[in-house]
């Protein structure tokens, strides 16, 4: 019944707008029957163009003032992070400059040269010099950005095996993440989804006969030692997922049937990050928002929201099905000692199997 009512109301609104427009339309017809812009239209719309330029600038400024702290361009938690951030800020500066100038020219010309009866436009069809200038300037600017970008990209993507990275597997499935540590030998055991055996709890399909697999450790939380290069090997058992770790400026797809990889070195522990003044402010702001929401919920007799505490996160960032929106894993960066003692508490693969 409410459904029908809503459709009727929506229909009503549509008709109302239609009728209002019609009335507006009818009041116009007597004054100006030509539907081609006249001097008055040109003048009004010329000024509106100028106003619109102001609007574009205004929305830019407002966005930066209100939401300027949202973008992840500082406080990255990985070694390569600041490099990406710097490149991002440089690119943004270039974009900002070009945007400001070109939008000005476009809208200002639209205002300045608004049509008047009897005026004649300048017959100006070509200028090779100008064309050359605005071909070559983007070429130079882009060449710079491309070079910078490629150096950064290669720096991030080319993995130096000699640094002795800690090898961790990120394992994706609908709709959760698991991490597999390589154990003492730092070599992951062979694995394939065909070897999955739920009866004896071999949930990631490790080769039970592989000696390298015996000391592997499977966890549902990702702990990383600070300052040590980490080499992630990604695997997915069902559909495409993407391992997105925004605070580390890291992302790689997980593809069924192949192993993908990404490496980075975490530089700031979770504890340190929580004490960072900017993060601290951000968190208290979020808690303010949550408190407000909680009050509303409590007034309705529902449970209030939990207090938010900062944590690094691994999110799924490739559409993967119904619960895609809630596929996450907590990441904890800690000192080597804390990491070692945490790891010691975890069960080795060979001990985790259920013997039938």
């Amino acid at each position: 019944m409410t459904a029908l009512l809503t459709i009727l109301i929506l229909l009503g609104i549509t008709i109302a707008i239609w009728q209002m427009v019609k009335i507006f339309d009818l009041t116009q017809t007597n004054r100006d029957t030509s539907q081609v812009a006249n001097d008055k239209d040109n003048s009004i719309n010329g000024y509106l163009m100028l106003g619109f330029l102001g609007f574009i600038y205004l929305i830019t400024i407002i966005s930066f003032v209100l939401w300027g702290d949202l973008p992840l361009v500082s406080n990255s938690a990985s070694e390569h992070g600041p490099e990406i951030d710097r490149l991002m800020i440089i690119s943004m500066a270039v974009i900002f400059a070009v945007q400001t100038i070109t939008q000005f020219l476009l809208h200002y010309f639209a205002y300045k040269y608004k049509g008047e009866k009897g005026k004649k436009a300048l017959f100006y069809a070509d200028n090779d010099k100008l064309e050359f200038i605005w071909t070559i300037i983007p070429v130079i600017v882009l060449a710079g950005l491309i070079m910078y970008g490629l150096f950064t990209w290669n720096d991030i993507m080319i993995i130096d095996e000699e640094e002795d990275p800690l090898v961790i597997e990120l394992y994706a499935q609908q709709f959760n993440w698991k991490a597999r540590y390589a154990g003492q030998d730092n070599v992951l055991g062979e694995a394939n989804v065909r070897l999955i055996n739920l009866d004896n709890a071999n949930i990631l399909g490790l080769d039970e006969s592989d000696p390298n697999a015996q000391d592997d450790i499977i966890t549902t939380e990702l702990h990383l030692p600070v300052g040590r290069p980490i080499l992630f090997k990604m695997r997915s058992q069902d559909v495409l997922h993407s391992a997105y770790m925004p605070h580390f400026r890291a992302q790689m797809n997980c593809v069924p049937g192949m192993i993908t990889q990404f490496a980075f070195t975490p530089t700031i522990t979770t504890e340190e990050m929580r004490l960072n003044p900017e993060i601290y402010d951000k968190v208290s702001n979020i808690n303010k928002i949550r408190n407000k929401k909680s009050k509303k919920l409590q007034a309705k007799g529902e449970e209030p929201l939990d207090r938010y505490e900062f944590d690094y996160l691994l999110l799924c960032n490739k559409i993967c099905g119904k619960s895609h929106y809630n596929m996450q894993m907590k990441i904890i960066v800690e000192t080597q000692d804390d990491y070692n003692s945490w790891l010691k508490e975890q069960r080795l693969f060979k001990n985790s199997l259920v013997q039938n």
Partner: protein
Amino acid sequence: MSAHAEIHTHEDNHGHHHKETFVTKYIFSQDHKMIAKQYLITGLIMGIIGILMSLLMRMQIAWPEEPNVIFKALLGKWAEGGVMDADIYLALVTIHGTIMVFFVLTAGLSGTFSNLLIPLQIGARDMASGFLNMVSYWLFFLSSVLMVCSFFVEAGPAAAGWTIYPPLSALPMAQGGSGAGMTLWLVSMAIFIASSLLGSLNYVVTVINLRTKGMSMTRLPLTIWAFFITAVIGIISFPVLLSAALLLIMDRSFGTSFFLSDIFIQGEVLHYQGGSPVLFEHLFWFLGHPEVYIVLLPALGITSEVIATNARKPIFGYRAMVASIIAIAFLSTIVWGHHMFISGMNPFLGSVFTFTTLLIAIPSAVKAFNYITTLWKGNLQLNPAMLFSIGLVSTFITGGLTGIILGDSALDINVHDTYFVVAHFHLVMGISALYGLFAGVYHWFPKMFGRMLNKNLGYVHFWVTAVCAYGVFFPMHFIGMAGLPRRYYTNSNFPLFDDTQDVQVLITVFALVAGLVQLVFLYNFVHSMFYGKKTEQNPWRSNTLEWTAPVEHMHGNWPGKIPHVHRWAYDYSKPGHDDDFVPQNIPLKKGEEELQH
């Protein structure tokens, strides 16, 4: 060429005496002008559906917890108690994308204006093959119907995103929408591609063979150049999508393993072995990226024509404009990998695609600067079409610039698949192409229907839309850079993003207003079709040939002989002429020089 034209005249003089029934005139018409109208109206209807879907999504994102009566009313069993189902959210994402990209901005835009303008502007009686043209439209119609029908499938419509990456799209057990819904999607798209190819072949053949006497390639209006090159890209890239769709159908229904390997789902190992989803991504984006330009180039072509006419000035840098269209078309086929930087492909390929991708910024910049220079010292007639064209240049710049970030593999790592991408492509291809479509409709409505659209309603339509478009997509960059992934049904499981929620609400409010103001356009469109002011033959005082044809449509476009062409299309405000326009069919005066192209 002359003899050719004569023969045509001869044929068509006979053509008039054929009896036309309602069916041959309005339904199974082979007349390009009628087919253009059919494309436009079908495209608009699909557009209404697509926009409505986006509004449902925006309401869900802004107010995820609150039951919404509109959901309950429109989504039925997918929104029990007014709470939207997570699967249907993804289905809305998918079908909205598919409809807007293919059905509205490819068929609705290119189909309408290529059909209307190619014969009229090059001076041809009709398309090379009127029959194929008719078949093309009806295949498009059929695929539209199938796509809409998929919403009524028991397990829901396709919901794997418009990119339908397998295995999600291949396995019904991975997602409800990957069953019959996905089958319908694939069949609908296969038919759509057939329609698009028939159309494109027709456009290419027509432009190459049926130009009137004097209409050399260097005298073609930029609209025709854009439609021509668009058709060429379509012919190159659409078959690749068709092959990808066919292979996917094989994987789904016949047990092959083109895209699938090593899958364990819902407690069982599937037999697939040796395929790769990355292969699908390559095939998909080999169409998917050129598709962006298939959508955009016609809009830019329309803009070139509308800006020159209304600025009463020649388009600045005609040769550079043609060269940049060709350059963009060429580059568009070698940049697809920038959608796949983090797909697991070799990082070296990432470097190559970064290079080619950022190159495309150069011809794009040339186009933007040329538009701006065309306005300089013009005598701008700010008709609604002109406003939409200027608006297009504005959003093309704003959206295009952030492409510099997304095309840079190193930066893409952290903004890939976030709202930043959503903001970027909606501005640069969504809004821009939509503006191109609107500009075209306002400009050529008189040619299509013999009546004028109401300009004041046009102004209201443009200004509200323009403000809302920026209001929706500008703030979206910021929540994207905050790391918020797109395609999340709700963000409430991530307290991390709680401070982005007020931006989401603001965006939704702008989106709703933008949606409502489209009703003004619809009213204007439908009302003016029947009651609009009757048009003069050449209301915008334009140079191109379509305005030399009589207002009343007729088979063969011109009574008597086809006009011959003596000059390019942009002799606006040329010194030595009394009027500020000189149509292409006016011979050069004694001693008058034609610009050398």
